[in-house]
């Protein structure tokens, strides 16, 4: 039961990504061209994985949260807070590792706070994380004192714009994180426990699963991922923008997770496919920019995608198409 949906779902997302990339290639014939320059790769494809990295990192954390039937709306605000912490500490003269670790610790603390509200006080996740979503940007502005804190620290900037083995650092971090978290949930029983909580928290607790501790863990992971994404975004623009860093990225992250086949009703999740989902979103963004449409056009495409996925996941359409059930997927998601 644990493996089966994964195998089944592996195809539509990858096919969709391929389809989006092909459309981009038709619009922009140089899309797949990758050149080697100054010790790193350049090209639109590299740009997609680089720009998609923050959402991919958020999606890794968000997958765990959504698998427990929750949602974390605060990740965008946590990104702003952690970016602000890293930037102000570096400007204040702390060594880079200390500043980055402090930012990660703050993100972890924010995640634990969300986890505390959800697990211990039993508050609906969407509302519990709303508190930090509303207050977080205010806290970030408090840290930066309302201005955009810019910095020139080479080590910190490297996290955002540097390259490792020719690939952008942000993408390398996202990939490493994805592999680590996937191993954590698939090579240990934690993934199974998370699924159990998502299906029925009361039953899972009765079966002896420490649901409180696990809920704290998934929200803490989400906070930590948001902190990593926040540091990357701040390092990328060499400044911490409390107002715009990570704005609405929580929605992109949720969309990426949903595209990745994780059920909003809990109980079924896949970390790598959520990352693929993030790449699909970014590939569409790039495609829309390349083809000269206004960037706002993106929103309509995203809305269309959500509706399509909801239709495919819904029980009603499932019944209507029950006829075709033998087919792996009656309708192509792209």
């Amino acid at each position: 039961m644990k493996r089966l949906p994964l195998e089944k779902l592996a195809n539509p997302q990858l096919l969709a990504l391929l389809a989006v990339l092909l459309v981009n290639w038709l619009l922009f014939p140089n899309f797949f061209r990758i050149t080697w320059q100054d010790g790193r790769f350049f090209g639109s494809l590299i740009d997609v994985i680089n720009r998609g990295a923050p959402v991919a990192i958020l999606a890794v954390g968000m997958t765990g949260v959504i698998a427990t039937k929750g949602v974390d709306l605060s990740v965008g605000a946590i990104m702003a807070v952690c970016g602000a912490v890293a930037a102000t500490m570096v400007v204040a003269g702390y060594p880079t590792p200390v500043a980055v670790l402090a930012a990660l610790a703050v993100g972890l603390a924010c995640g634990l706070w969300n986890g505390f509200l959800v697990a211990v006080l039993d508050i609906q996740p969407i509302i519990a994380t709303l508190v930090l979503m509303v207050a977080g940007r205010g806290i970030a502005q408090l840290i930066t004192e309302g201005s955009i804190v810019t910095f020139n620290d080479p080590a910190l900037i490297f996290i955002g714009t540097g390259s490792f083995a020719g690939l952008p650092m942000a993408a390398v971090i996202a990939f490493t994180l994805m592999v680590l978290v996937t191993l954590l949930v698939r090579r240990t029983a934690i993934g199974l426990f998370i699924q159990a909580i998502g299906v029925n928290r009361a039953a899972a607790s009765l079966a002896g699963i420490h649901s409180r501790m696990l809920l704290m863990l998934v929200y803490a992971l989400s906070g930590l991922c948001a902190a990593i994404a926040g540091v990357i975004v701040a390092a990328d623009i060499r400044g911490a923008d409390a107002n715009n860093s990570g704005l609405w990225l929580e929605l992109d992250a949720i969309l990426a997770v949903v595209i990745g086949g994780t059920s909003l009703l809990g109980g079924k999740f896949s970390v790598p496919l959520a990352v693929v989902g993030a790449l699909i979103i970014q590939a569409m963004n790039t495609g829309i920019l390349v083809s000269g449409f206004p960037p706002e056009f993106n929103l309509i495409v995203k809305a269309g995608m959500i509706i399509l996925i909801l239709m495919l996941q819904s029980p009603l359409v499932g019944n209507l198409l029950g006829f075709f059930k033998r087919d792996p997927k009656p309708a192509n998601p792209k």
Partner: protein
Amino acid sequence: MKRSLRPLAATAVIFLIAYAISVMQFPGMLSTRVLGNFLTDNAFLGIAAVGMTFVIISGGIDLSVGAVIGFTGVLVAVLISWLGFHPLFAFVIALGVAGLFGAAMGLTIHYLQVPSFIVTLAGMFLARGGAAVITQDSVPINHEFYRTISDLIIRLPGGGRLSFIGLLMVAVFLIGAVIAHRTRFGSYVYALGGNPVSAELMGVPVARTTVQIYMLSSMLAALSGIVFSLYTSAGYPLAAVGVELDAISAVVIGGTLLTGGYGFVLGTFIGVMLLGLVQTYIIFDGTLSSWWTKIVIGALLFLFIVLQRIIFAASAPGEESPEKV
């Protein structure tokens, strides 16, 4: 006092205490001028929050409110300024479009059985994107009718003024309260939020009620967009970003239970006024920066959520854990 009225009383008491403290610090806040501006400045938020109250009482959430406000503003501005429609006609079209939009969201939520937040998230993208496709610039509205409306004010003793849009908000709250507590639709909404399964077994028309709830929320958001365009005399696709969060905060602070089935429309009014008070206090103080608004609203939100947990944990021991999203 009835136990179920406690959250409402708590909100009212906190508002009065906060207001008293503000007045002690800044005596100028106890004037009809400030109170009149409370209504005018929060009119669009209040109207949207009434719709949100119904949605939350029914156990759902509507994230598309801010985007619908922005879309309506643009639509109305384009119809009036570019196509030369009469504002009243433009308002009717905008309300109709929003009604269809809300109905579509309600149908999706009911028939596809998906959480309301993801459907209204798609609605938010759609409305915001639609507004930006119509125009990306701010469209000014210069119409005789708009000037007439903004001149419609009642002067109060002490220099205060009650504007048309402020009074409109109060009227929407009163009508909303009557609908919630005195009509069949209102009791259906409460029944649905309390327990959708038993509501259906008791003969509540779940599909029709769900569609009506989201139509109501979207149409009130459109009315709020019209009020916003009267307030600013322009339509801008990025207007009212994040108003849905303020509306949800106002509803929660007003004592409505987020798991559905319990809440007061008039509590939301106090919630909106409390948010207005926070902003006014920060303006009066002058040394506090605007970001404190967000932090204080977040703190208030936290306070009221915990308060609700405590009160309801005490009053309903058999209540199931709220697993709804």
